[in-house]
């Protein structure tokens, strides 16, 4: 046991730290000094103690805790990051190590929220019922499968477990949906993009005459944009249309994000127009007459084009 009273540090026993290094092959902090080890050991003990206090009903040994932590350690000091979510990680580690009661606690505290997380992407009217998707996600989290170990092992403690789980749930849900829809499309469902609307004859005519060319031109135009513009348009097509959201992820303010999005759309339109006039051999004047249709179609087509290239 480490005696950490001031001025009386026993450097001989730094067991948890050594355990950690034993599970981190080729870790280049193998040559850490004894005092480094003593500090790290104290930190690991602290994390383990905090985690145990957060989940008093779950018993997980310090060694097991460290073993679960090993795959996630940073390669630089501090080995345990300062923003480490100790209690969350403790629970995840306990699940990985199969500590009694851990999965129950995880289920109660976190897995129960999965239906809320996926409610926006899985509707009750979907082919795959939301509760089935949620069940599937929960299973993949805690049950090892042929594809690999239980995915809760991937949680590293960086950021809250709830946030991580939300991302993972939505990702799995979207993948599930995408798999299904690809399947249905193979069954011969017509591409809705080419179906006549029956509402606007001008659009139907345009689509009949230029549909394929338009799609090609749009794809070429999209490819000519820079990465940020492509990302912005994709996010926009994927449903995040609020300036503050886009600004948040780009690290800029709302108005800047809105302006950049507007510029990207203007470029897209201009490039599409250029490609289309070149391809169809029509004049700018002729193009203008179909511009209205292009404008009205560009958004819808964009989301289809972007989606179909997945």
């Amino acid at each position, binding site marked *: 046991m480490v005696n*950490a009273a001031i001025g009386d540090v026993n450097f001989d026993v730094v067991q948890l730290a050594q355990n950690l290094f034993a599970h981190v092959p080729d870790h280049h902090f193998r040559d850490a000094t004894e005092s480094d080890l003593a500090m790290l050991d104290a930190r690991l003990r602290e994390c383990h103690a*905090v985690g145990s206090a957060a989940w008093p009903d779950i018993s997980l040994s310090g060694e097991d805790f460290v073993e679960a932590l090993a795959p996630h350690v940073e390669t630089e000091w501090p080995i345990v990051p300062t*923003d480490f979510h100790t209690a969350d990680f403790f629970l995840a580690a306990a699940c990985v190590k199969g500590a009694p009661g851990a999965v129950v606690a995880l289920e109660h505290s976190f897995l129960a929220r999965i239906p*809320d997380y996926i409610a926006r992407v899985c509707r009750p009217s979907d082919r795959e019922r939301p509760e089935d998707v949620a069940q599937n996600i929960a299973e993949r989290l805690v049950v090892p499968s042929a594809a690999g170990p239980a995915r809760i092992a*991937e949680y590293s403690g960086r950021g809250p477990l*709830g946030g991580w789980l939300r*991302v993972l749930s939505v990702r799995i849900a979207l993948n599930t949906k995408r798999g299904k829809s690809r399947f249905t499309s193979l069954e011969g469902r017509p591409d809705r993009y080419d179906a006549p609307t029956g509402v606007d004859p001008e659009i139907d005519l345009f689509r009949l005459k230029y549909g394929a060319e338009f799609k090609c031109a749009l794809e070429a135009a999209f490819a000519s944009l820079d*990465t940020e513009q492509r*990302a912005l348009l994709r*996010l926009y097509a994927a449903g995040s249309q609020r300036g503050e959201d886009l600004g948040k992820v780009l690290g800029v303010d709302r108005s800047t994000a809105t302006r950049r999005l507007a510029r990207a759309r203007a470029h897209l339109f201009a490039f599409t127009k250029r490609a289309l006039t070149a391809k169809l051999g029509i004049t700018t004047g002729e193009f203008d007459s179909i511009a209205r249709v292009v404008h009205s179609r560009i958004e819808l087509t964009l989301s289809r084009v972007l989606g179909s290239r997945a």
Partner: protein
Amino acid sequence: MSCPTESAVARFVSGHASADERDRVTVHLADCAPCCALVGALLGTRSTLSENTPARAATDAPSPLPAIPADSQGLGRYRIGEPIGAGGSGIVYSAYDSRLERRVALKMLWAQRPVLGQEATRLHREARAMAKLAHPNVVPVFDIGVEEGRLFVAMELVEGGTLRAWLAAGPHPWREVLARFRQAGEGLAAAHRVGLVHRDFKPDNVLVREDGTVLVTDFGLAREMRAGDVALASTHGPGLTSETGKVGTPVYMAPEQLRGEPVDVRADVYAFSVALWEALFGERPFAFAPPGDLLTRIAEGPTEPPRTPRTLELPASLVGALRKGMAFHRDARPGSIEALLAECGPSPKSPKAPRAALITMLVGALFAGGILIGRGTMASTERAVAVPTIQQASMAIPTTVATLASSDPSDPPSSSVLAPLTYPAVSVAPKHLSRAVPPVASAAPTAPSTSLVGGPLAAVDTVDDPPVRPPPRRGGALRGTDFEPFGATGMRAIETTHAHEADFAPCLQSACNNVTCRLQVGVSGAVSSVACSPWEGAPACTATQACLEKAIRALPYPAPERVGESKLFFAPL
């Protein structure tokens, strides 16, 4: 390129990714439709850190799920939501206070033994001290207590990140770093004035709100935390901690604190100096060492800082002040945070100043343009009028003014829009403005930042001058206990140390989901201002006028003898 991990996506979506990581994810998104769909779906939901971002009907599902499910785990009157942060002292959850109907951040401290009797009494004394601590740079603590044997603290839910995260997103110009720390220092100093020593000051305990305001948190908890930690550690064998309370980050602890001796404000001076040094130089003043060696190193003084173009820019006086602040013997340190800050150099001009000037200008323009529909009822007894109305172009809420009641009962109200009101002057301004400008802005200011006051366009206030002026407040800083439940209307008002404030949300008009009203009642019981506006970014509410009318009617203030006093309204219509 493989898709970003769930952790990376979570950071990206919440805006907490580093600049590098953000660029990497953006590049990936440009060509990955599945990840874009993922981010799009996540952005559509309310993030855990900004739950009160208003949802717009257009982008939200028909009935957006409540952020905190009704059957979620409860703790007394709090319904506990997602953990939004955690540290050595406990997990912080977003929570919903079902009694006051608002979102709070709920910190649960680790305590393995029930907190009872004397300890609970001391906690409540502590809570009262913290409640007195109304300062714009301190996270307001609403409540502290023990439920089911667990010690908890309810605080304002601050949107933003920690100062550490902000620093990590840098590098920032040193003046900006210093300005942020200066704000934190002012928060610390305010605590010292009411006799609270922080004891655990570090960048992780400082929050930076989205608008750049810096708030110190975990005040006065340190002591309680130590008690909990000792209890906790004792179950894991001796040595991890002792009465010296070494659990935590020793690097910010003053030598006397490391030795477990009693501490005073100079321990905070030390911690502040270490944190600021680290922020400015990018490395800690004392090399990584176990506590025993750390004391020796502190005695030797800080290591020579790296000499880079960036650090060479730092004024010698600032570096010297920090060296003094980190003196081994506390008598050698400045006696207070204020003294340390003074030695760090002259305080720069308040960054708000240009904005305030702009507001004054715009408001002046409103007046010059005759937007004010003044009537004879604007008797000379009224002191001042303010229409601080700045709107983003996209919101474009036309502003109009109506004088609502006369000081002379025989004179009918000049505007028939609202019923005669029983309140003195009231000004209405969009909410985001009420954040920029101290909401209580009566004449005779003592707070230096109320630079607006005194001009021809100072905020309306016919309230008797409060005996003590509250510090400038920013939106949402409510504390204390209920003073008047508004029951059926769903409104709640809170007694603050110096003034009453009430939040009205949602709008009383059933057809309107966008409006919030803020109301302030001076110490004398009179309404000093009401702000009624859409949430930021929300479309203007056409029912605002009606909402306001109802809101005001529902308010039982002021005393009956004030009925008939002159009032002025600015209402976005």
